[in-house]
Every structure is written in C-alpha cells, then in structure tokens.
C-alpha cells in the first residue's frame, strides 16, 4: 500500500509510463517494417510478426519490473534515507521487497492490457493464446525466476555504486541475447552459445511457445523441465545472495552507502 500510495502521488509518472511504454513498442515496430516483405503475398515470420513482438514487449516490461522495480527498492530507500528504518522493522526484508513487486505487477498488467487494446484499435489484431494453461504456468516460472533475479540485484545495490549503468547494460543485454525481441536462431553461432546459458532465454521461449505455438529451442519436455529447475534455482540464489550481501553490509556498516 505504501508503494501504491507513493506511486499515485506522482501522477506525472503514471501518465509518462502509460505514454512511453507503448510508444517504445510502436517505435521498434516501425523500425522493423523496413525489413518486412514488400508484397503482401510474401510469407510472414513464424509466430506472426506483430504477436511475436507483442510478447517481446511483454517480456521487456516484466524484466524491467524485476530490474528497476524489485532490484531498485533498496537503492530508492537508500536515496530517501529510509533504508535503516526499513530494515529495522520486524518484517522479513524479502517480504518488504516482494510487496513492492505486487504493486509493480498490478501496474504492469494495466499497461499490458492497455497496449493490447491500443494494438487492437489501430488494426494490429487481437492477441490470442494458443495454450492458456501452459501460458500461465510458464509465465509463473518466469516470474519466480525474475523475483530471484530482482532480489540478487537488490542485494547488489548495497555493494555497487554504478547501479544504473550496470542495470541498463543488463537490460539491453537481455533484449538482445535472450530471444525477447527476435528468436535466438537469428544470432550467429558463437554468440548463440551465450544466449543458451542465460535462463531467461528458456523462460521467454516457453512463454512464447505456449502463446503462439512457436517451436521450442530444446525438445519441449526437456525445456519445460529445465525452466522449472532454473526458476527454483534462481529464486534460491536470489534469496541466499540477498541475505549474504545484506549480512556483509551490516557488518561493514555500508547499508546506507550510495
């Protein structure tokens, strides 16, 4: 509630978010039209062009939430000078951070819904799901992995000063290397190996497979098992990593250093 309250206290941010997020999507979509077949009879890309990018846009919003939403919670409290009070409350740090994620998840859902409607109104068609059950499940795996990742990043803010630079680089790396906006098969082979060791590649691929019936990178069942294991591992690593960094920062007295 605290986070929701501070969010609605700055209406300019809300308006900005609702304008800029879909604008990013349309900006990239326009750039890509230059490469599209010149005649309507030509074949469209696998999974339908606009739907493919729409899910890429969804991944970017969700990842941004993990990166700047969950990850930046600690930094925001540091900047506001309230981190010590925040950490002195008799509640788990993780609960506090995940509480923020709930608000972000709500606003993400609103933005995604609003963009879907906008896309439909400008003639981009309706976004449909091939297998809604699998979609929800794989999205859940993605979210679990993302929370773990966000927690680890939240911990890192207590250690690194150039958080913004690193988060920006990681964010762009995510967009290019995880098949968010284009399939990893487009990436040349030596670089494709990097894509294959990033867990989000499998989450993205599985969610898109559930939504658009696109072929999976690995055999379906294997990819499914790998995604489950990765999301659990990421969550555990996130929790443990955050706790360890926090303990170290408490001993060094660097919790509020930024």
């Amino acid at each position, binding site marked *: 509630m605290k986070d929701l309250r501070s969010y609605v206290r700055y209406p*300019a941010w809300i308006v*900005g978010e609702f304008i*800029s997020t879909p*604008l990013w999507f349309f*900006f*990239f979509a*326009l750039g890509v039209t*230059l490469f599209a077949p010149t005649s309507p009879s030509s074949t469209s*890309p696998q999974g339908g062009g606009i739907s493919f990018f729409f899910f890429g846009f969804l991944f970017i919003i969700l990842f941004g939430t993990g990166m700047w939403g969950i990850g930046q919670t600690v930094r925001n409290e540091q900047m506001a000078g309230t981190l010590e009070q925040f950490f002195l409350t008799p509640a788990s740090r993780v609960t506090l951070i995940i509480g923020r994620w709930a608000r972000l998840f709500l606003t993400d859902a609103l933005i995604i819904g609003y963009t879907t409607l906008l896309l439909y109104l400008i003639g981009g068609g309706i976004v449909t799901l091939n297998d809604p059950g699998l979609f929800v499940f794989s999205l859940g795996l993605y979210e679990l992995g993302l929370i773990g990742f966000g927690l680890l990043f939240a911990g890192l803010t207590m250690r690194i000063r150039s958080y913004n630079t690193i988060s920006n680089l990681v964010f762009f790396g995510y967009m*290019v290397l995880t098949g968010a906006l284009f399939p990893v098969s487009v990436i040349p082979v030596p670089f494709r190996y990097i894509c294959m060791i990033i867990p989000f590649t499998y989450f993205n691929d599985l969610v898109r497979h559930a939504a658009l019936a696109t072929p999976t990178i690995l055999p379906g069942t294997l990819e499914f098992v790998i995604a489950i294991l990765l999301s659990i591992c990421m969550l555990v690593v996130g929790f443990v990593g955050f706790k360890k960094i926090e303990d170290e920062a408490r001993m060094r007295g660097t919790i509020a250093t930024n």
Partner: protein
Amino acid sequence: MRTVSGYKATVGALAAIFWKGIKHYTRYPGSFLLVLVMPFLFTLMIFGMGQFVGGSNASVNFAARTGTSNILVYEILGSAVWMTSWVVVEDVGVALRDEQMKGTLEQNFLAPVNRFTLLIGLSLTDIVITSAVFVVVVGVTTMIVLPTAFLSLLQAFVILLVGLIPLFGIGFLFAGFVLRFKEPYVFTQILNLLFATLTGTYYPVSLLPYWVQFLSAALPQSYVVEDMRRIVLANQTLVSLYGSVFILIALAVAYPTLGYAVFKRIEKKASVTGEFSKY
C-alpha cells in the same frame, strides 16, 4: 581584483562550467560508457528483429525501402543522432533540476554570471561528449563496414555540429519547463522517445503519416539524420544539401532564441513566486 563582467569573465565562467561537466562525466565513467554502448545495442536489436521479420530477403526489402543495403551504417547513424539529442536533453534540460536537488541552484543563480552563459557552459560539455559519440559510434562503424566513406565523415560531423545548436535551444526550453513543472525525468523519457520516433532514427520519416511528418520537419534531428545518411551512404556533399543546411541554420537561430526567451520568462516568474528551491 576578479572581473565579474566582460569578455574574460564570461570565458572564465564558461570554462568553469565546462570543466565541471567534464569532471562529472569522468567521475561516473559508467554513464559515459552507456552513452557509447547504447547506439550499438539499439542497432543490434533492430537488426536482429529485422532479420527475423525479413528472413533471407531482409536486406533486399530494406534496400527497396531506403535505397541502401548497408543496414548497419544506416541504423548506426540514426542511433548516434538519437543519442546526441538524448545527451543534450539529459544534460542541458535536467542540469538545473540536479542543481535543485543538490541545493546548489540558488548559489549558481546568485553568482554574477549571465544565465545565458550558464546554459551555454552546460552545452559546451555536450559538444565534447557528442563528438566522442560520433567518433566512437559512427567513426568506428564506418571504418569497419564502409571504409570508402570514411572521408565523408568530416562533412557528416559538420552537419551534426550545426544540428547541435537548435538542439541546445530545445534544451534551454526544456530547462525552463523543468524549473516550472519539476519532475523532469518523465518528460525526458517521453521527449527522448518522441525524438526517436519523429526524426527517423531507424526508418525514413516518409514512413510516418503526413501529419506526423509536419512535426518531424520542425525537429533539427530529422535533417541531421537524413543529411548524414545522404553524405555517408549516397556520396552527397554539404553543397548539394544546401536546402536542408539552410533550414538547420534557421532552426539554429530560432530554437535558442525561443528557448532562452521562455527560460527567462519562467525564471522571472519563479523568482517572484519562490519556486527555485521547491521540488
């Protein structure tokens, strides 16, 4: 005794503001690195998405629409110009807000320095930063991908420098709005994105609806991107592009005049209402 007016004092003030800006960049090398890396990352993204959409015919489709098959140089030129405007909006437009946040805006405004000198000083740092963006992003890419066009980069750089002047004017305008409306980061985000969309960063402006093209025509970056592409990719010269160069020069007069006038007006009002220290 130190002079507070005249040519020497102005140069001294400009140099101080300039070095302060450079120091800020060197103290936070990460943000500078980001400015250099982002154009490549955006270009890679568009390139990858394009390859997926167009498949084996991607470059043929691209060439049919743009007149060039050199996708990388075409997109990197757009990215570099976009990054230039990004830097100017972030630095010139938001600088005063940063001073507000640090509590140093009043001291700056109380110093016996003309506001115009202050704004110009902020812009000088950006000339160095954007030149670095040009050399690293455009220079290196062209040298590797299209070495035959390397010499034409000098003319492209001249266009970029001319285009910076109206952009600074937009920065002054934005700085005024920041004093008035606070919350600059939302506006920065939207403005940067609008610039990218309207100025043909990754596509020709002609792809946009007619009414949007009118808006594009009012933005200096539209001419800069287009002219740089013509110079580097189509072997044209500044002389053959005289029409758009004249428009850029006209915008270089109009925007700073308008921007400074608006800034002064808002500043005057803010000094009456005591807005400077509010945020």
